[in-house]
């Protein structure tokens, strides 16, 4: 009775048959071996994950520059960037109307828009898509806010599974200090103030990030994260990242078409 309407592996398999869901994200825990599953599109998806201040955005930026300069067919996308729900999210945040559930749903709607109109068409069109944060951000952050992980895993089932997920892991103090040093004031939801962890924003932020990092850690194996040591120097880390991308993604597919030889 309590299972009424709950997702299960059978419905999951059924999901892979629908045209818009090339592969499912996996049920709770991400079991289902999607990393081995054959991709049904010619593109590839590389994502970075990690708490704020872990260095992931810097590293993805450098990866993007490397591929851009090389002329590869790439597209860069960010979490929470669609104009569609931006005004709603902003209104909800300003007036503090968001609950863990509506916060999560709004971000899912935003992601769905980007997924259907950007990510999936580009993957089908043979692009290498780079994503700064992906559904794992929702899994980590929304579970930290109290959402059910079973519910969340179902919610994002329409999302294509990444070819590589880099998880940047830095010690909490290092990451948190980077953020706090660079920001005059932490925002309400950003600091997890809705969770009533602490009245002090910096302290609340630290506790919230600790919870999120804990959630990321639980996904390392089930979701096949490539763990990156955020304490390494930027340059060494970037070299490592490029090596892994080269090894795991056939970059030749995204290389610029060679120009016909110029007539002599």
């Amino acid at each position, binding site marked *: *009775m*309590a*299972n*009424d*309407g*709950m*997702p*299960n592996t*059978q*419905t*999951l398999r*059924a*999901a892979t048959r*629908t*045209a*818009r*869901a090339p592969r499912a994200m996996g049920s709770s825990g991400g079991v289902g071996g999607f990393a081995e599953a054959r991709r049904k599109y010619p593109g590839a998806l590389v994502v970075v994950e990690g708490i704020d201040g872990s260095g992931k955005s810097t590293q993805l930026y450098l990866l993007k520059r490397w591929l851009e300069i090389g002329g590869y067919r790439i597209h860069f996308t960010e979490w929470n960037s669609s104009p*569609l*729900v931006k*005004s*709603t999210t902003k*209104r*909800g945040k300003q007036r503090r*109307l*968001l*609950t*863990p*559930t*509506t916060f999560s*749903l*709004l971000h*899912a*709607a935003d992601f*769905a*828009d980007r*997924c*259907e*109109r950007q990510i999936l068409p580009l993957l089908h069109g043979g692009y290498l898509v780079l994503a700064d944060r992906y559904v794992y951000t929702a899994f980590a952050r929304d579970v930290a*806010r*109290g*959402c*059910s992980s*079973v*519910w969340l895993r*179902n*919610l994002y*089932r*329409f999302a294509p599974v990444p070819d590589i997920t880099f998880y940047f892991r830095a010690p909490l103090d290092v990451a948190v200090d980077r953020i706090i040093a660079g920001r005059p004031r932490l925002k309400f939801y950003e600091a997890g103030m809705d969770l009533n962890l602490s009245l002090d924003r910096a302290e609340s932020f630290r506790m919230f990030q600790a919870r999120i990092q804990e959630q990321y850690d639980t996904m390392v194996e089930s979701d096949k994260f490539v763990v990156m040591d955020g304490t390494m120097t930027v340059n060494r880390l970037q070299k490592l990242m490029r090596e892994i991308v080269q090894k795991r993604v056939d970059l030749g597919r995204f290389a610029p078409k060679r120009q016909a030889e110029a007539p002599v």
Partner: protein
Amino acid sequence: MKRGGSHHAGRSGAKRAKRVAASSSADGSGSAAALAAHFHGIPLPGVKTEELGGSLIVVEGTDGSGRSTQISLLTEWLESEGFAVQTMGLRRSFLVAKDIDTLLEENAITRMTLTLMYATDFFDQLEHRILPALHSDFIVLADRYFYTLIARAAVRGIERGYLHGLYAMALRPDLTFWLDVSPEAAFEREFRKSHAISYWESGRDMSLSNDLFQSFIRYQARVRKEFRGFSARHSFIEVNGENSIPSVNLQLRKRIAAHLGIPRTRYRPSAALAHLWR
């Protein structure tokens, strides 16, 4: 709230609380399971169901099934019987209702995004309108519930298992009425009401037919089939919506009166609502 065991006896105010206590002691352990039983499988974060009183009564049905008329009449009847009433419906949340209107007008939205925007609208109302009302012992009359949202998304090809999972945290209604009408009757009523058929009501985004009437009929027939599908699963009380308004209203009043322990079901609409009584 039929699934928990104790069947309706009088006001449901204390019932939810009792049921939580009963089932958790029966389980020995899990209050989580008991909590989940109030929802469709997964408890809503941060909700204490033992504090919920009142009743959630849902009226479902396709466009033109007479739902809104019945809700108006029921509201007046319940208020005359001394019950405080709160209503809810689709696209009425403070958070996203306007945004959905805009998106629909612009027709610039994909079905997955629309599905999730409607879900946001639903849960915002559940958390900010329904639950507070139930906390205050109100009767909540829902002019459609998430069943319509599942039906609409399912006929557009989104997998049913996904959709049921999405709404697994929706509160279980105490009573759900389904006003069933044939697509032809629905068309006639809608056309009489507004002298036109809307883009979405006729499912024109689905390219079923270039003929508006055909498109409407086919679309509504598919939605109706979805409703048939969850009628048994969600204990729908089926009501023939093609019967006269007074006769449908009497059927609804009888069931609600039994549920709330109202001894009599006599009712005549006031002058303000007399025009609905035909």
